[in-house]
């Protein structure tokens, strides 16, 4: 596409946080920048994407604009109406928001065993304890589940959630409230404990219903952890892996915060380590660093890394196993596809109707014939397939179940006949869909068979079994005041839930909370911080020798592959 990208948006001044107009535009160096001027604090400029071609593609997909990754989401009834301050200042969640929540977040504590210098939620820095009671947590869970389009997944965050002794009980509570997928964002504290304690903790969490560890994982070298976390955590991280494996907890997603020249060189190592531990690793989410707080322009330029940088770095470090021009799609790509699968299964869909800039993902799938992990794009022609799925969804979404025989023959015989008829109808629609996508399959084989089974069975177990043997790799760039785009905040699908003192729940998008409102809200909900619990974790950062892992993965200090 030859035309240069240009868009006028609303952003904020990084100094005073006042709303100001901004321009996102492609410049002569084929990069995309955001520029804005605050009447009080002057000009600001930051990079949005280091690859203008790719950026344009993620917005328009095709030059004729026929296919777009900008998808409108469904909305829940708002919790409040926007006032004159508008978005983001009276956020919580108002009528200006245009997506539902697909992932509910709750900060269960701001205590942590680590003190990372860039963390926004730490009791040591804030001096106040934010740790909701179980009753308050249940109130937040009920809030998310009671919406007409309820949140399907919940993630416990912090601080370090596993420093709470009642963490397994909190997990069980989420299961009771009906969440289908329960995750914990953790540095691994509870799971890494030596002498069988970590394994026992993992088992208790697993039994309580914990599905996935969203596991802070910056690399495979102590040197990296010293830079990012101020401690040599490589053994600690491996203990988490071993204890989870021993406890049968086999759904771990690595989360790597990427900053230029700090952790970006570990991207390939992390993918390799995930493949080598594919029996318990389900995915990797790279998160380009979000620069909350005051920072000089020079530091910003040094650390800033965009989603496009991450994808190019991965291509370089995997020697083209994952390619920018073939493998990565915005999260919104699979909106209709996800709705179709949920419709087939008769379950609630997870709606990825966020902004195209928020994140990109791809899948590596285990080829049962060659027993290697390969990009899923080697097996299918994605764009026409998705286009077909979109058209198919339009046909399916208003399809009603028949009650013809019930009306004719009554509740007993008629209802049974209708049930059978509706089941057959649904199976025929599934088969029609599979036949419809057939021309876009490049390489059928076992993969097609497994994919067909997911569509045909469609329940959570089938979807889960598909995810075993595949590796989701994504890059999610959270916003900061420098690159803030109000449109992204309005489309956000990752929402914090905060129990407020007046008995209500504040539901607010991730980036809005962390950048603008967290401090003010925490002042209202904080408790006095005592010395309680500090000793609980301080002795356990270093631990005993562990059993060897399956394969180390990555490269050693000489740059040679570790066998």
């Amino acid at each position, binding site marked *: 596409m030859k035309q240069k990208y240009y868009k006028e948006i609303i952003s904020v001044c990084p100094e005073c946080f006042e709303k100001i107009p901004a321009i996102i535009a492609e410049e002569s160096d084929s990069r995309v920048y955001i520029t804005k001027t605050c009447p009080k604090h002057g000009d600001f400029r930051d990079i949005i994407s280091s690859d203008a071609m790719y950026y344009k593609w993620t917005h328009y997909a095709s030059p004729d604009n026929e296919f777009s990754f900008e998808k409108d989401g469904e909305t829940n009834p708002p919790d409040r109406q926007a006032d004159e301050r508008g978005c983001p200042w009276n956020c919580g969640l108002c009528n200006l928001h245009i997506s539902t929540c697909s992932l509910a977040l709750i900060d269960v504590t701001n205590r942590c065993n680590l003190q990372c210098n860039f963390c926004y939620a730490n009791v040591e820095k804030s001096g106040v304890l934010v740790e909701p009671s179980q009753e308050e947590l249940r109130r937040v869970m009920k809030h998310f589940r009671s919406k007409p389009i309820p949140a399907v997944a919940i993630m416990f965050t912090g601080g370090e959630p596993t420093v709470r002794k009642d963490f397994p009980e909190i997990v069980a509570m989420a299961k009771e409230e009906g969440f289908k997928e329960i995750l914990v964002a953790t540095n691994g504290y509870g799971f890494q404990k030596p002498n069988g304690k970590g394994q026992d903790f993992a088992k208790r969490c697993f039994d309580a219903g914990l599905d996935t560890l969203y596991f802070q994982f910056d690399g495979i070298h102590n040197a990296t952890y010293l830079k990012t976390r101020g401690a040599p955590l490589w053994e600690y991280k491996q203990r988490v892996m071993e204890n989870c494996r021993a406890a049968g907890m086999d759904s771990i997603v690595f989360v790597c915060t990427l900053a230029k020249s700090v952790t970006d060189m570990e991207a390939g190592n992390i993918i*390799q380590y995930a*493949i080598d531990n594919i029996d318990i690793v389900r995915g990797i989410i790279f998160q380009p660093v979000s620069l909350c707080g005051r920072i000089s322009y020079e530091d910003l330029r040094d650390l800033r890394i965009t989603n496009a940088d991450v994808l190019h770095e991965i291509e370089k470090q995997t*020697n083209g196993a994952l390619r920018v021009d073939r493998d990565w799609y915005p999260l919104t790509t699979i909106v209709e596809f996800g709705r179709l699968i949920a419709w087939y299964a008769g379950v609630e869909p997870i709606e990825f109707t966020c902004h195209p800039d928020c994140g990109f993902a791809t899948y590596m799938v285990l080829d049962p014939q060659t027993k290697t992990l390969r990009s899923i794009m080697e097996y299918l022609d994605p764009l026409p397939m998705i286009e077909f799925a979109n058209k198919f969804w339009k046909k399916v979404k208003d399809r009603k179940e028949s009650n013809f025989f019930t009306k004719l023959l009554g509740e007993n015989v008629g209802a049974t006949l209708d049930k059978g008829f509706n089941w057959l109808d649904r199976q025929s629609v599934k088969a*029609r869909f599979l036949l*419809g996508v*057939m021309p876009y399959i490049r390489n059928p084989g076992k993969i097609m068979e497994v994919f067909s089974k997911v569509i045909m069975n469609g329940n959570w177990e089938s979807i889960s079994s598909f995810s075993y043997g595949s590796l989701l790799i994504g890059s999610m760039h959270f916003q900061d005041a420098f690159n803030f785009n109000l449109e992204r905040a309005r489309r956000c699908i990752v929402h914090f839930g905060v129990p407020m003192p007046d008995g209500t729940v504040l539901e607010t998008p991730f980036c809005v909370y962390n950048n603008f409102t967290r401090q003010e809200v925490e002042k209202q909900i904080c408790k006095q911080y005592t010395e309680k619990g500090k000793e609980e974790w301080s002795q356990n950062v270093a631990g005993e020798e562990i059993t060897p892992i399956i394969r180390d993965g990555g490269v050693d*200090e000489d740059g040679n592959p570790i*066998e």
Partner: protein
Amino acid sequence: MTADNKKGKPKPKGTDEEVKVRQLTELRQDTTEKAQKALESRIAYFDKKREKPFQEQVETMVSKAINAVAELSLNVRKLVPEETQQRLTEIWAKLMLAF
């Protein structure tokens, strides 16, 4: 890793903190036997969790049939010129969407 690399290169000097973290240069995409077994047992666990044996049988049969048709159609497509292929795909999509 070559034998030369294994034997020839001395261990880098300095503590772990001082050693520069290296980038991977080539991804090894194969999986270990142990990981394979763990995966297979997990998939079997999910298969067992499905409590509808009849439905499961029907669906497995349909998926196998669809896969066979997909393989066949791929082979047929190889014999057809690209332009005709495109037209056939369009007609096929319209047919599948006509309900």
